[in-house]
């Protein structure tokens, strides 16, 4: 069954994901298994901090992970409407209200520590959306070593290793 969702625009194709992983996989063989869509809430704030008498504007884009329930600032990204198999779309339990609170907390925390000052940034929510990030799931196999899987961010090409599983299939 297919479903239409709003996703982060994909810039990395399946072949590119495989090549990226293969370039670091040594004597493992990298093979793309499928594309997964990971759920986030996205909030875009227009903020400003006042230093002495000068007001300085800045933008903060914050993604809140709906499965792990944690927030992080992110670069701005393009969005697109995609049609995907429901079985490849992951769902999270976090509500929009909870996510907003986490985003606000994170923006203030990040602002204080990155600017190294106790300044409360004035925030105005400009835009928000429930978005999905496309990840390529890539399996790395070896005839004599335990295989493992890697996810490749379909927007940026960054990767992260998944937990090694003895009976990976």
């Amino acid at each position: 069954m297919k479903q239409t969702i709003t996703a982060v625009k994909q810039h990395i194709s399946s072949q590119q994901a495989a090549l990226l992983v293969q370039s670091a996989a040594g004597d493992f063989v990298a093979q793309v298994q499928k594309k997964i869509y990971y759920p986030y809430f996205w909030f875009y704030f227009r903020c400003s901090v006042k230093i002495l008498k000068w007001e300085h504007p800045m933008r903060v884009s914050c993604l809140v992970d709906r499965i792990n329930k944690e927030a992080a600032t992110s670069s701005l990204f393009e969005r697109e409407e995609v049609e995907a198999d429901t079985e490849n779309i992951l769902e999270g339990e976090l509500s929009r209200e909870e996510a907003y609170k986490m985003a606000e907390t994170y923006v203030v925390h990040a602002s204080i520590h990155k600017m190294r000052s106790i300044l409360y940034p004035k925030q105005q929510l400009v835009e928000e959306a429930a978005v999905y990030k496309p990840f390529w799931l890539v399996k790395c196999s070896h005839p004599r070593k335990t295989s493992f899987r890697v996810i490749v961010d379909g927007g940026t090409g960054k990767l992260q290793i998944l937990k090694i599983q003895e009976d990976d299939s």
Partner: protein
Amino acid sequence: MGNPVVILFLILYYVVVVGIGFWAIKRGAAQDLEGFLLGGRKIGPLVTAMTLQATSMSGYMFLGGGSAGYTTGYWSIWYAAGDIGGGVVNLSIIGRRMRKLSKMMGSLTSIEYLEHRYPHPATRLVSGILTVFFLFFYVLAQFIAGGKGMALVTGLPYWLALLVALGIILIYTYMGGYFAVAYTDFFQSIVMLIGIVWIFSACLSYLGGFTAANQAIAEIDPTYLSVWGKDLGYKGQWGEVAGAVLIFSVGYMGWPHVVVRHMAMDDPHTARTAGLYSTIWNLFFVTSPYLIGIFAILILPDLADPELAIFTVAGELLPAAVTGIVMAAIMAAIMSTADSILLQTGTVASRDIYQRFFNKKATEKQMVRVSRILILVIGLIGYIVALVQPPGVFAIVVFTTSVLGSAFLPAYVCAVWWRKANTPGALTSIIGGAAVAFLWKVAGIAAATAVHPMFAGLLVSIILMIVVSLATQGSSPVPEYITKAIDECANVGPIPKGMEEMSEFNLVAAAKGINDKLK
């Protein structure tokens, strides 16, 4: 009255730094938060390392290190020996794993991270209180350093210079901004490096070289050249030596305000390369303040306050304009360290204590207010103590590091390396280690036993962590979700090194989520 040329260049330096900061922020305005501070650029590992070092260099280096060299001679080099590799040791042992585990657990602060790993409210309460209390002493050292430095440079009476320094630190902390951009940190680190190298070179030139200097020191008192210190005061005291080396080699792993940096790491490659640059920096830089202090024995034989050895040597040997710039860079280093510590203290107090235990519904604005109030209180109490009974910068930093390192080192290390480290083990380790290190110094046991408080405290906290964790495995097992997270952070197995290097820490949470959903 201070030298007007020195004061002029000191003021000019701050104007330039604020100007750079203002320009960078204007350039980065209306960009995202990272761009706001970096002027829209990404900084590489070299600049990362330099900015880290700029914030790490503090009053301890420029006053404490100099005074240790002046009063104890080559004994002080034991502290430098530990410091050279401390950053890399810290990064290698817990850096990557802590970054991953903190991401998986959604921890914002290093104290919250401890509670997530050792789940119990007492973990957070005890750790939070200890951190706030002892970081106060570390900040106090910066206040004293700033006050003394300002008094020497400007000629103001100590009470007024202290007030000015404190005022600048508080303004810095409240408004940061212009001082917080990567460009200003990088600029300051370059000035500090040039300044220290210049002072060091000027000393060698004045004294006729390293060998001539050591020979001259030997004529005054040959025991200055001994690693057992003046009058061979520490001869055979391996417990003191061990503690002196441990403090800045492994002690960093027990500092909540230092390990929190691992939680902000981008990727292992940048962190590792930045760590390498930091070590190279330390090789050249970290011994210099102690050596300048030792050389000051010859240049300034009747120095009333050994803590002003480096400042006074700079004033004697460098041109006035250069002295002004170097003094300003040193003062900026002191203030940026004080600012970093105050920020961490404010965050711990507002988030880990106030919000966690007193007002769960506290808004971000309320927590910022709590941080500001606490910082003002710290400033006020710190001013009074620094004025009435100022302890030595060296003594206070070593004391604080000993207690914090003894308290938290086993907890942070075992959090990522030992699956059996449980809550009772961590709590007894933190409390026991802190108590022993504290009492060892305050009750004079260190002097009686010739064992450094750091060594004693760390030994006790390690033993408690192991014994209590093993004894309570049945009654307080480590939750399965935590042991699984530790295993994932370890990532032992056949993962090629290149793959590890390319891993993006910001995707750790997504990887965990996908793992859980795919089961």
